[in-house]
């Protein structure tokens, strides 16, 4: 089975490292998890390399991450996007919804809860049959704004 390539874009290097180490460990060596703090580097990888999943923390203060998401949606729509953010707000959720992001989780999530979401984003069955409960639905709910 060929190795999957996952890219993490996070301006918090420690958080990015933990995500990378955790996923690398838990995905049982079937994936290569790479980290970058630069949205430009991530876009270069998406444009020229094989990327199976892009995990992004879109800091609302940094517009480059939003541009990256827009570019991937427009020019590499086959690459699944997973937003893993420390800046969860209804506004950010709305923005992600508009960009067509389906997989959205808020920090501080446990890695064991993040794993099923990653499997779902990769569209592969996880080793266990647990559903990805940690995903925050970006569909229009009828209650909370």
């Amino acid at each position: 089975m060929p190795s999957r390539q996952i890219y993490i874009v996070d301006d918090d290097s420690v958080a990015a490292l933990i995500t990378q180490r955790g996923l690398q460990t838990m995905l049982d060596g079937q994936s290569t998890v790479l980290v970058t703090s630069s949205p430009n580097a991530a876009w270069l990888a998406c444009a020229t390399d094989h990327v199976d999943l892009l995990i992004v923390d879109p800091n609302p203060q940094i517009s480059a991450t939003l541009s990256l998401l827009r570019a991937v949606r427009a020019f590499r729509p086959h690459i699944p996007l997973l937003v893993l953010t420390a800046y969860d707000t209804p506004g950010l959720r709305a923005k992600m919804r508009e960009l067509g992001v389906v997989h959205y989780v808020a920090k501080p999530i446990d890695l064991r809860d993040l794993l099923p979401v990653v499997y779902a984003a990769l569209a592969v069955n996880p080793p266990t049959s647990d559903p990805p409960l940690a995903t925050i639905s970006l569909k229009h709910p009828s209650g909370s704004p």
Partner: protein
Amino acid sequence: MSELECLRGYIQDLEGRLYAAEARADSVAQEAELQQRRTIELSARLSAILSISAALLISRDVDAIVQLVVREAVGIFPGTSAVYLFLLDLEHDRLQLQAAAGSGDHQTGSALARIAILSPRAMLLVGPELEMAVERLGSDELDQLHNTPGWPPYSALLCPLRVESSRMGAIVLYGGVSAHLYHPRDIPFVQALADLTAVAIDEVQQRARAAILQRDLAITQSLHAEAQARLNAAQAQLLQSAKLAAVGELSASVAHEINNPLYAARNSLYLVEQDMDADHPQRAFLAIAQQELGRIARIITRMRDFYRPTRAELTATSVNILLRETLELVQTHLRHGHIHAVATLNPDLPATVAHADQLRQVFLNIILNACDAMPRGGDLRVTTQLLHARPEAPPTIGIHITDTGMGIATEHLAHIFEPFYTTKAQGTGLGLAISAHIITQHSGRISVESELGQGTTFTILLPVST
């Protein structure tokens, strides 16, 4: 000629002179008697006029005034058959009979009153003059009068009731067939009586109008005080909410900053735990550390959600109704500021699930800011519309609040939604920050466009189902 004849002639001459002197004495005596009678009559009239004047001064009722005048007029002008007093009914543009005395005919009085009100001053009409004057009014009326008993009267005194240049009615007196003619010296008296009457009626009417104005003023002041109190309460609530929101904003920003290190710490422990033997003696402490970090995560979540409305506070809300209520709330404020508000609200706007009080605060804050931007008055336009970005996308409610005020400088425009950023001496810098926060919490967007000296437009986009 003998001396005797001379004496006789002299005596005759003396007798002739004596007769002439006696005749002059009789004439003087008659004249004196006439003058005395006139003086008495004049004195009686003056006395009556003064009495009327005194009575009119204390009278507070138009009906009492007119009744007194017609009653006294009969006595002041001897030989009067009838007195009529008409007042002008401006609403129906006609003369309305207010009071009558004597035994006359209403139709005669009405015809004469129509002549009187067109006259600038009092006038005396005698015999044929009366018929000629009525003829000028119209032939039909004269035909009717010919069939009226007692027509034409011997003479009539007519006078308009006027105050300054304003006509308010007429007084008419006429003498019956057997009465003596009125005299030109009666004219100043009827004029004085009419002037006194007009002034007294005018004063009563002015007093009534003043009372109505006073009552209206009291009602207006009461409404104004009520509206001001509501506005003050709303502004106080706005400030209180802004303070709370500032705390919430701070909490949320702190929460976001903590999320990354917390995520790293919790999951570092998790990764350590994965490599640790199940019976490792330090595993218990690792579990405690994970539990406590979990507690911190829950506290952070609560802090982040400090100003997020709970589900119970969210209801189906009509943006149009909220905007109308807000405009109603600031109505007095707008009127005093000479601000003309126009609301163009799309009647087909669907309801949105929202925190109504919070949205009302946003609208109130933006509208009050617009008022502040127009210290010399201006136009405020509030518009709502239903937007469809894409056919498959859910619709969005667009709200535009535009003023024609002084505008916002470009250097301020980029910062106006930041907390504590203000250009006002007494501003908190929280109003627009919290407005933006509330709109964001409702999954909406707020933006501003402004041009110095031209005005400002705030645009709020709210999803129909938030």
